């Protein structure tokens, strides 16, 4: 069956790309658009490594059909960073040593970016709840939570 190309925006840029109905958004981002910052962890929704923002809403790209992003704005970790350098949240991750192997980091940054946008001054408990869907197998949670809190406090 002939499909019209998928039209949506990725990190602020309009994109038009062939996309069969069964294509998963994560696969489209990584393999077709070569945006490999978004990671494939469990591929079943458990680990949060593949989180992206769709119209600002944190979403598991491994459990999203790409065609359902038609007409929407997808923001990946590449779109969270300013053109030069890092976002304040990303800088805080570096400064607090909140990255170990780094594989889970994009998902944490996406989840925390949405949290800080909606709740600029979260409590520690709110931060912990907001990243409860992101797994860090290096178990570096303390530094991750501290980096997010430090960003909120502007230090």
């Amino acid at each position, binding site marked *: *069956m002939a499909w019209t190309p998928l039209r949506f925006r990725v990190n602020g840029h309009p994109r038009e790309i062939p996309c*069969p*109905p*069964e*294509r*998963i958004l994560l*696969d489209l981002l990584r393999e077709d658009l070569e945006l490999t910052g978004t990671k494939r962890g469990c*591929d*079943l*929704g*458990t680990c*949060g490594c593949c*989180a992206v923002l769709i119209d600002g*809403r*944190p*979403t*598991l790209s*491994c*459990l*999203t*059909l790409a*065609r*359902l992003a038609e007409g929407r704005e997808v923001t990946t970790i590449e779109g969270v960073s300013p053109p030069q350098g890092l976002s304040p949240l990303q800088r805080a991750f570096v400064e607090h040593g909140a990255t170990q192997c780094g594989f889970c980091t994009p998902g944490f940054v996406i*989840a925390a970016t949405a949290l800080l946008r909606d709740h600029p001054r979260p409590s520690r408990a709110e931060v912990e*709840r*907001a*990243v*409860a*869907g*992101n797994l860090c197998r290096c178990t570096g949670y303390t530094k991750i939570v501290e980096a997010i809190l430090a960003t909120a406090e502007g230090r």
Partner: protein
Amino acid sequence: MHLDPFELHRPATVDEAVEMARRHAGAFDFLAGGTDLLPNYKMHLNLRPHVIALEGIRELEEHGVERIGAMTRLAEVEGDAALAAAYPGLLEAVREVATPLVRASATVGGNLLLETRCFFFNQSEFWRHSLGYCLKADGDRCHVVPQKEKCYATFSGDLAPVFLTLDARVELAGPEGRREIPLAEMYDAHGDGIHRTKLRPGEILCGVRLPPGARSWRTTYRKLRLRPSFDFPELGVAAAARFDGDRVAEARVAIGGLETYPTSYPSETAALAGERLTEAAARAVGERIRAKVRPVRNTAIAPDYRKKMAAVFVRRALLALSGGAAA
């Protein structure tokens, strides 16, 4: 992981969705939030050639205190202050579902119609092949109760027990028209882990209706699982009560995570009416329910333990309603 090809349909209205379901009878799945269906598709569990996506149908997305559209995201329930204030037990249950990232996509309707789960079903194609598959997918025997020809996969939604204690009704739309039935009647008490609802072919769950009286009930939800996030319930207990002074006017308990459908226990809670909700009374209800539940060995936690915990969780949930200490 790439999915096997299917045709994707995007109806704009419920009527269009019903028509598509009629046209592809027996060969489609409805796609709500995707957090249950797509993992199962990735593991090649009961694939269908047609997928009808319900996203974008406004009637299914509207939500308020009296009616919650089936496509309401669980995160939207959490963020709806009026809903949370009206039904605290519903908010507790929603917050216990999976993780914030899953709840951003997962829907109320999807949770009520969650695929049943089993240790022998929710596995990769490779794993299941090596065991010769099972009744619920591609095989002809049950590995949980081998001498039986029915499926024991467990109902693992967290919201259904709470809605059952609130006497919720569900709106359905199908090829034969629209109807509204009590939620309790949507689940098939005589079915099994495969034939688990009494939905007619092609019927869509459109929304949940809560009776006006539901707001005068105190509600709570307690969940047993391995990890404090992500995991499905090994036992999910909802309790609700109305009080008349310091005495119970009426109390209800409903449980998920133990059998193939979520169950209410009216005869086990009837004795609470007119009584003070004491530790002894709550304990007695817990023991009566424990004697009745029949979990099987198909999840991470052993059935004996889940059964024992049913008594404990029922007691704690009831005492939480009375404002008493959770012992």
